[in-house]
């Protein structure tokens, strides 16, 4: 797939991967051998009918291909960009055994983009069932759940705390990986199904979940995501110049700090930026730092390259752009100058021992290996926990020891009529898993609504 050259893209926030044109897409689609028993589908958390939509692209029937995808996935332009396809559908492609798998994600993206660029989709709003469902959080899980419920004729209202819908798609994933216009268009399409979105609405502080139920919502879906940044609890962590990845990315993506002062929210990035962690969020932050003018940007990770949890493509793009990997080290203390700004970190070296509970080799600190690492900005990208605002105000909602909601595989929680899915249940995971959870919950909510009607 064509991409913006690394030397150019590091100076802008334009999308890195440029996507297929029709000729390339058909060529790639023709590589699909249309297995009688397709294995790719089992790798897709939402079960997209992959061979069928690829066949339609072969036949240049792109609108039909998109309809086919949308039977299972409401947001293909997003998933085509941010799904970890190499670990999902493409991993199970028969061709992957011998050569490169069919680029399923890129084909999905091509089809979705073609529709966004070329035609207005028409939406049939089904007849109203009379049931009302409240969705808390307009991120991937909530949006997907809303889309599926609306298609079944239920009246859906999404309550979102921020001033735009989209959740992590808007505040977290950078423009260069997922253009915000795509998210906006997908959400506009969702509204055409009759879904209403109430912005600036912090459930728990305004109405609680119980109050929503009292107000006549027949069911509530909680999809509030992983919205609480973790820090390492090491000395110096509150120095000026230490950000959570959430803050760093929210300032940049949601508040458009990269366009300061045209947009009023600032961000301050030094010359040498260390991002602690090596997931997709860390890659996003490290690449963002370069685009914001940092001269050096480091991924600081206590395991080795083999264990890096980020998508391979993101790591590759990051390295191409000049992000440097500092592996098998971790900070133990952050040091500041006399004005309280970060100037360096003490790091300690690690070696890998036996596999731990995560299945990855356990990092073990090497005593006496402390050394100084000169740096002036630190971004903590070591994960996020569940935001407690909704959870604390919803009595009867069972939580696990990490503070995540306990829900069964259909999203049913310990509280009748209350469903949950996405990162608030699983802990920080991927967009597509959240979407999958949103879908399952929508199905379960639909069944639940039918049981109320029978009573």
């Amino acid at each position, binding site marked *: 797939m064509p991409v913006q050259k690394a030397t150019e893209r590091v100076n802008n926030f334009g999308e890195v991967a440029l996507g297929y044109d029709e000729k390339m897409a058909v060529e790639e689609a023709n590589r699909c051998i249309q297995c009688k028993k397709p294995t790719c589908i089992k790798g897709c958390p939402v079960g997209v009918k992959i061979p069928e939509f690829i066949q339609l692209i072969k036949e240049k029937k792109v609108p039909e291909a998109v309809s086919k995808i949308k039977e299972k996935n409401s947001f293909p332009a997003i998933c085509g960009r941010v799904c970890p396809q190499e670990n999902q559908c493409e991993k199970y492609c028969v061709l992957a055994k011998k050569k490169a798998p069919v680029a399923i994600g890129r084909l999905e993206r091509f089809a979705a983009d073609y529709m966004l660029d070329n035609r207005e989709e028409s939406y049939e709003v089904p007849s109203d069932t009379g049931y009302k469902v409240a969705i808390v959080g307009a991120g991937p899980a909530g949006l997907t759940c809303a889309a599926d419920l609306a298609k079944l004729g239920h009246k859906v209202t999404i309550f979102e705390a921020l001033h735009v819908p989209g959740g992590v798609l808007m*505040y977290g994933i950078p423009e260069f990986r997922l253009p915000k216009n795509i998210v906006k268009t997908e959400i506009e399409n969702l509204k055409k199904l009759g879904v209403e979105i109430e912005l600036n609405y912090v459930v728990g*502080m305004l109405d609680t979940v119980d109050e929503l139920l009292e107000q006549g919502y027949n069911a509530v879906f909680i999809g509030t995501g992983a919205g609480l940044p973790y820090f390492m609890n090491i000395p110096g962590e509150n120095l000026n110049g230490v*950000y959570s990845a*959430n803050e760093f990315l929210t300032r940049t993506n949601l508040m458009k700090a990269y366009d300061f002062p045209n947009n009023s929210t600032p961000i301050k990035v030094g010359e040498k930026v260390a991002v602690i962690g090596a997931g997709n969020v860390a890659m996003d932050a490290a690449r963002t730092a370069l685009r914001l003018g940092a001269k050096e940007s480091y991924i600081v990770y206590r395991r080795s390259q083999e264990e890096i949890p980020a998508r391979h493509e993101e790591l590759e793009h990051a390295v191409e752009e000049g992000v440097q990997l500092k592996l098998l080290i971790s900070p133990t203390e952050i040091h500041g100058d006399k004005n309280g700004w970060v100037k360096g970190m003490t790091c300690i070296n690690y070696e890998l021992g036996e596999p731990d509970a995560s299945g990855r080799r356990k990092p073990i600190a090497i005593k006496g290996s402390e050394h100084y690492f000169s740096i002036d900005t630190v971004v903590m990208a070591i994960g996020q926990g569940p935001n407690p*605002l909704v959870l604390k105000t919803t009595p009867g909602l069972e939580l696990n020891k990490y503070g995540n909601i306990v829900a069964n595989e259909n999203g049913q929680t310990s509280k009748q009529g209350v469903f949950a899915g996405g990162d608030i249940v699983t802990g920080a995971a991927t967009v597509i898993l959240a979407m999958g959870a949103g879908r399952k919950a929508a199905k379960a909510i639909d069944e639940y609504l039918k049981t109320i009607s029978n009573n």
Partner: protein
Amino acid sequence: MYKIIKKQILSSSIKLMEIEAPKVAAKAKAGQFIIVRANETGERIPLTIADSNKNTGIITIIFQEVGYSTLELGRMEVGQSVTDFVGPLGKPSEIENYGEIICVGGGIGIAPIYPIAKALKNAGNKVISIIGARTKELLFWDDQMRQISDELYIATDDGSYGQQGFVTDILKNFLEQRKQIAKVWAIGPVVMMRAASNITKAFHVPTIVSMNPIMVDGTGMCGACRVAVNQETKFACVDGPEFDGHLVDWDLAERRLNMFKEEEKVILDKKLWR
């Protein structure tokens, strides 16, 4: 959209606005704050709620124009609407009948101390209020404060109104004379809250301060508003904004507030109206 119903210029740099936000007004309690975004390119500005009315659905905010974003908000007029208005955020003040309490409001801190003093008064406390500002021009709401206080004391740095000196001077005098003060609320600039806390600490009087760190989302998501309390990191937006003033790390609070000083200059230079 959230309409500006009333605008009042309290001093050359301090403005009051009444904003139509019925849902927020229905839930707002003393000590909580809101986040306002004036327009599509604006910053999210946290402001403590100065007053709220469930019946009219109106929230009163008072702000000092210190940087570009507050200047921009201050330029808006009655009839216009701010793009976003989120709240109520943060934990409400713990209002009980403590007995005799002192509410200290310094400068712009008079705005947030008002609803707390009012709630404490309604809860049966004897409310002694001490408010102050650099100069008379910057002092507002002395009438409102008088109405809800059993005793009101006023200080200005230059002596142009009330006693000459700091609110903390009056506070200290009070604590020296009256031993029965159950609790102190002190809200204002960090230097003032710090000074007030130092004084009350010597007299062992529990003291609540309201932290006003830099914030983005206000719901616990970004961690920008980190404050250290008793050497533990807290998020002012969800764990606060009120904390035990005797346990706050004031040096840290002061440093973190200055994080974007240079950027504030840049935007003022580039975008200030002429």
